């Protein structure tokens, strides 16, 4: 499927309809999940009462920012090996959204952490540190691209950095895991099945799906804007050369 979309014309034709569809379905799913989260789901005294409702934003955003970094590294790899122009456009579009989602994850985590742990920020927590590292990886990627003179150089430098970052992420993750943790253990994906009650789990998964679709739509929108920008540049260059 993806090799078909590597052709910019097919991508533009596909994304023209995919963007509104993803936005519509994503917003509907996310809206339903938010309704469940804010009005239906019972508050949980053990997790600090009503603050459990933050989970329906926080946990999906944590999954998404990891997914976005994988996407950044994957498209950088594809661009570096096969030089598919669209892969670089994708990497470029993913970076700011990924940085935004890591920031959202850290912010909602802090808001959740204050009533449950009694502190906004906890250096001891391995997952918090991992997300913080992802945040810096996204920022470094964007800063490096911005500092390069030409698009081509920005793409090459960015791809090298994203790939070096991706091979380092397991090591960084391992090292911060060794740092002790106050977080509860994994409770959704476990060998014996989810430990979470369905009343929490369903809105959580639907929220993840909805936010994922919205993120996909945002990435496609940025990619389309970039392709349009390049087309406009080409048109301008032709006009100028014709005098």
């Amino acid at each position, binding site marked *: 499927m993806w090799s078909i979309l590597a052709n910019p014309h097919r991508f533009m034709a596909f994304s023209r309809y995919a963007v509104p569809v993803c936005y519509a379905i994503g917003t509907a799913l996310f809206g339903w999940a938010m309704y469940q989260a804010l009005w239906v789901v019972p508050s949980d005294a053990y997790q600090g009462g009503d603050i459990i409702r933050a989970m329906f934003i926080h946990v999906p955003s944590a999954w998404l920012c990891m997914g976005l970094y994988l996407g950044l590294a994957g498209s950088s790899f594809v661009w570096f090996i096969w030089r598919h122009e669209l892969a670089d456009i994708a990497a470029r579009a993913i970076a700011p959204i990924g940085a935004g989602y890591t920031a959202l994850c850290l912010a909602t985590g802090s808001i959740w952490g204050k009533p449950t742990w009694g502190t906004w920020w906890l250096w001891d927590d391995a997952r918090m540190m991992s997300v913080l590292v992802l945040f810096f990886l996204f920022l470094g990627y964007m800063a490096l691209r911005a500092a390069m003179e030409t698009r081509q150089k920005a793409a*090459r430098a960015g791809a*090298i950095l994203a790939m070096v970052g991706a091979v380092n992420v397991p090591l960084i993750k391992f090292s911060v895991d060794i740092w002790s943790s106050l977080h509860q253990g994994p409770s959704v994906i476990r060998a014996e099945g989810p430990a979470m009650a369905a009343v929490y789990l369903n809105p959580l998964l639907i929220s993840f799906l909805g936010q994922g679709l919205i993120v996909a739509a945002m990435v496609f929108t940025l990619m389309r804007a970039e392709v349009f920008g390049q087309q406009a540049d080409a048109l301008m260059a032709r006009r100028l050369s014709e005098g």
Partner: protein
Amino acid sequence: MTLPSPLLSAFRQALSEAWAGGAGVLLPFGFFAGTAVLVPFTMGSDPDLLAKIGPGVLWLALALASLVTLERVFQADLQDGALDLWVQEDGSISQIAAVKTLAHWLISGLPLVLLTPLLGMMLQVPATQTVPAMVAYALGGLTFFLWGGVAAALSASVARGGLLIALIALPFYLPTVIFGTLALDEGLGGTSILFLAASTLFALGVAPAAMGAALRLAAD
């Protein structure tokens, strides 16, 4: 066995440049010592407190001191054209980058390690920690320079890329700092020093290839 000549010349050039400028060795040395000496004035001179934070302060100073010199490592080669010549040598640019990093570590990393017993003594670090600390600082310094070298190579063509290098290198420094700090608590018999050594080996495997790719980009 003889070294291929571009590697040897790159190594020699890196060493002689460090001495020629005068500040090549002294700048990180002074930065490192200065940071460590300022700490008791900012944190208070309580010996128990200093003994507790001393090793960590030296890690911090080492990481920062490594960043101070990285900006110039490859930029000078780009400006004087040496990089263009190296890129023409078939496939050896990664090795040259590794050799340059090694030379850089010998010049501005190893002297700092040799200074740590003295600074450690001033910061009330227990004498039993001196040897494990020096091993850990030596390994950690090399890892800093390898990952920092990747950042420096990527931003070699950027004027005043110091901040960019720091931003890029920061996440990569994290495992070294964590394992390094734990290794000082555990000593040479612990597992953390092994993890530290493993992360150094990992950097030795990955970083030269990345530096090579980045330098080829900078020379274009």
